[in-house]
Every structure is written in structure tokens, then in C-alpha cells.
């Protein structure tokens, strides 16, 4: 037999369950519209719900922003490093592209020139007032020999005067001991360009009766048997005094001798093979 108090509990339980069952069955019939009870509950709970939502949303937003920013910071650092790496790669590629273009230019030099061409990098320079020399990174092992013509796509640079197995010393055309046979491109007037003591170039041995003008372009004449005929050499920039029935002029070299990076050595080009004997005296060479 259930005690009185037990009875109360059971009664309460059944009453509540019955109430819920009634709610479920009665209000179900009107499901298409919100009932009063539900409306009251929804309205009553709405402010609290909004408050909780704002609070949770705030926490989530702070969390997302703070920790997302931590991630973003890390990601940013990684991207910056990657960007630097890519920029370095682009710079490297750019340099390589430029170098390739420059090398392509070397092989476009004087299609009429026979013989082998060796591209060499300038590895040292000894350009002083008295001596105008550079050292290149190719030597006899690469086929170089004394008196190989050394040029760039712009013009004549000089000739090999000493060779090692792996390197060679090039006498620039601006060296005081250098002499190159040249021809004025238009008038075909011939002469010899020597290195001046001030590091410049001077055209000599031009007959007084022949015309020479500022701006005349000079090409190699081939008479020195070192440089093939027709290579761009330089330009007359100033006419000098007449001495001993010959004209002189100041010449600006076509090649930028002060900024040489790579040069082309012409092996066995026309005429140069005759000069493989270093003891042979070159025309115009002191």
C-alpha cells in the first residue's frame, strides 16, 4: 500500500504527464499556427536567448579573430619568406635571361667570321694608366692561344697576350702597346689605332690628303692579321693635329672597355692562325 506522501508524488507525476500529453495532442491539431503557450514561452525566452547568443558569438568572434590572427601572422611570415625566395629566384632568372641574351649576341657577331668562338668571363682587371689588361676565365685547355682576337657584340676588346691552362690575359685595345689596323667604314680610309697613355685611343697613320671627319665609324681592316676584317671598332670623336704628313684623331671604342663581363675569343679566325707564333712581329706592334 502506497503511503500518503507516495500517493502525492504519483499524483503529481500523473498530473504532469497527463498535462503534457494533453498539450501534445491538443496543440498538435493547430500546428499550422503558433499557439499562445508557445508564443508566450518564445517571447519570454527571446531576450535571454539573444543575450546568450551575443555572448557566445562575442566569445567565438574574439577567439576566431585572435587565434585566426595568430595563424595569419604565422602564415604571413611564411608567405613573406616564400615571396623573398621567389623574388630571389626571379632575380636569378632575370640575370640568367640577360646573360643568355648577351651570349646569344656573342654568337651573332660577324656571321662571316670563320673559326671557333669561345665565350669567357672576365675574372680580373688590371686597367691602370700604364697597362690596360684583363684576365679571362678560359685558357689553353679551352683552345685559346696568344693573339686570339677578343671581342664583344659591340666591338673589338683586345687580344690574348698570355695564356695559362685555365685563364688568359687580354691586352685591351686601349693599352699603350696595342695597335689595331682599322678602316673608316664609309670612306675606306685606313689607319692604325693605338692605345694612348691616358687610357684612350688614337687614330694614326692616316694620310693628310684623305678626308676624316668626326663621327666616322671605324671597323677592323684585317691588315694586322689578328682581328678579322669588318669588326666594329669605334668612332672618331675628335680630330687631332697633323704631324709628319699624317692626320690623327681621338677614337672612342665601340665596346665598353670599362664594363666588360663576358667576351668572345675568336679561335682560328681569318688571319689569326698566322700569328700563333708569339715571336712573329705584328704590323703596328712596337
Amino acid at each position: 500500500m502506497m503511503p500518503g506522501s507516495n500517493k502525492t508524488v504519483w499524483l503529481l507525476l500523473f498530473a504532469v504527464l497527463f498535462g503534457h500529453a494533453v498539450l501534445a495532442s491538443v496543440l498538435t491539431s493547430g500546428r499550422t499556427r503558433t499557439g499562445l503557450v508557445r508564443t508566450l514561452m518564445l517571447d519570454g525566452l527571446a531576450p535571454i536567448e539573444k543575450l546568450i547568443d551575443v555572448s557566445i558569438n562575442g566569445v567565438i568572434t574574439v577567439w576566431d579573430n585572435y587565434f585566426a590572427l595568430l595563424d595569419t601572422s604565422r602564415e604571413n611570415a611564411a608567405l613573406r619568406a616564400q615571396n623573398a625566395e621567389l623574388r630571389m629566384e626571379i632575380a636569378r632568372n632575370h640575370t640568367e635571361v640577360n646573360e643568355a641574351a648577351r651570349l646569344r649576341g656573342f654568337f651573332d657577331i660577324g656571321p662571316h667570321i670563320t673559326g671557333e668562338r669561345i665565350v669567357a668571363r672576365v675574372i680580373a682587371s688590371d686597367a691602370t694608366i700604364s697597362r690596360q689588361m684583363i684576365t679571362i676565365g678560359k685558357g689553353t685547355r679551352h683552345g685559346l692561344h696568344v693573339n686570339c682576337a677578343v671581342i664583344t657584340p659591340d666591338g673589338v676588346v683586345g687580344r690574348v697576350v698570355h695564356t695559362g691552362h685555365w685563364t688568359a690575359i687580354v691586352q685591351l685595345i686601349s693599352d699603350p702597346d696595342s695597335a689595331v689596323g682599322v678602316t673608316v667604314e664609309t670612306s675606306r680610309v685606313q689607319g692604325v689605332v693605338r692605345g694612348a697613355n691616358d687610357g684612350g685611343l688614337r687614330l694614326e697613320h692616316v694620310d693628310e690628303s684623305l678626308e676624316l671627319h668626326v663621327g666616322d665609324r671605324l671597323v677592323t681592316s684585317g691588315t694586322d692579321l689578328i682581328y678579322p676584317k669588318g669588326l666594329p671598332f669605334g668612332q672618331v670623336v675628335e680630330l687631332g693635329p697633323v704631324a709628319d704628313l699624317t692626320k690623327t684623331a681621338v677614337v672612342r671604342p665601340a665596346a665598353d672597355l670599362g664594363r666588360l663581363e663576358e667576351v668572345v675569343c675568336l679561335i682560328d679566325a681569318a688571319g689569326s692562325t698566322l700569328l700563333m707564333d708569339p715571336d712573329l712581329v705584328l704590323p703596328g706592334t712596337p
Partner: protein
Amino acid sequence: MTLRVVRRRDYAEMDRPPRNFGTFSDILKFTLTLVGIVLVPGILTRYFQVFEYFDLPLIYSIYYGFTLANPRGSIVIGSVLGLLQDAMSGVALGTNGFAKTLIGFLAASAGFRFNVDLAATRVLALVLFTFLDAAVKVMLSSLSDAGGMSVNEVSIGNWMLSAAFNLLFGMILFGYRSRFGNAAA
């Protein structure tokens, strides 16, 4: 034996006030807790899908049933929690109210008949009550044609998932209570 009967008393002995609810702040705190129990999971589900498997009102009905040791109080709490849940979830009013009332009462009864401080008892209770809650709701829906859930839509997989999550949260809650205080704290 895990589920041994620890003592058998009638409900008159069990009907004692759970705690001093004399002050207004206590009542307010308790009311807000009940409202929060119903509202928080719904809001959290918007952000974290996994919360749809948690039935916080169910867990708290069991929790209060076990810890308050007051059948009347548990009936009322279960009823209120269920009704609020119905209002907020859109199912027919009374569906969850009925289920949670029943479970609150059963939990309170179990709290006096079994040693609910044992982890095994709590695990079993959380799992069984989750299935009972689901079964009651299916039954009511099918009987009243409430449209919330039909027998054909019963998903044992979802029930099991729900039981697993309820078990997880319930055990944390009981563990917290064992360490720091009682239900009304």
C-alpha cells in the same frame, strides 16, 4: 554487484528540500540555469554541429534526479526543462515535457534505490535514459501524429551517437559535482 539496492525508503522520506532556495538570488540563479540549459545547446549548434547530439535538458533531468534526491522537484524540473525544450525546438509542446518528466522522476527514484555515485550506475543510467527519452518521443509523436518524428524516421545510429555524447557530458558533469559540490551549487 554494481547496481545493488542501497536502501529502500518511501517517497515521504525522499521528499526533503534539496537545498536552501530561500533567497531570491538562488531562485533566479536556478531559473537562469534551467533556461540556459535549454537555450545554450541550440545556439551552440549554430556554430558547432556536434552539439545537436547533446541533449542537455535530458542530462540535467538525470543529474537533478540523482543529486537532488527529490521526486517532486525532479518532476517539476524535468517538466519545465522539457516544456522549454519543446518551445524552443519547434516540436509539439508536451513531447519533451512528458519524456523529461518521466526521466526526472525515474532518476530521482533510482537515486534512492541504487548507488548512483558509482560510475557504472551513471553510465548505464545515461545510456538507458537517452534511449528511453528517444523511445517516449517516438511513441508520443506516432500516437499524436505530431509530425515531429515518426517511427519510420527512428535512427538507432543517431540515438547511439546521442547516447555517447550525453554519456560524455554527463560523466563530466557528475565528476564535477562529485568534486566541487551539489546540484544546486
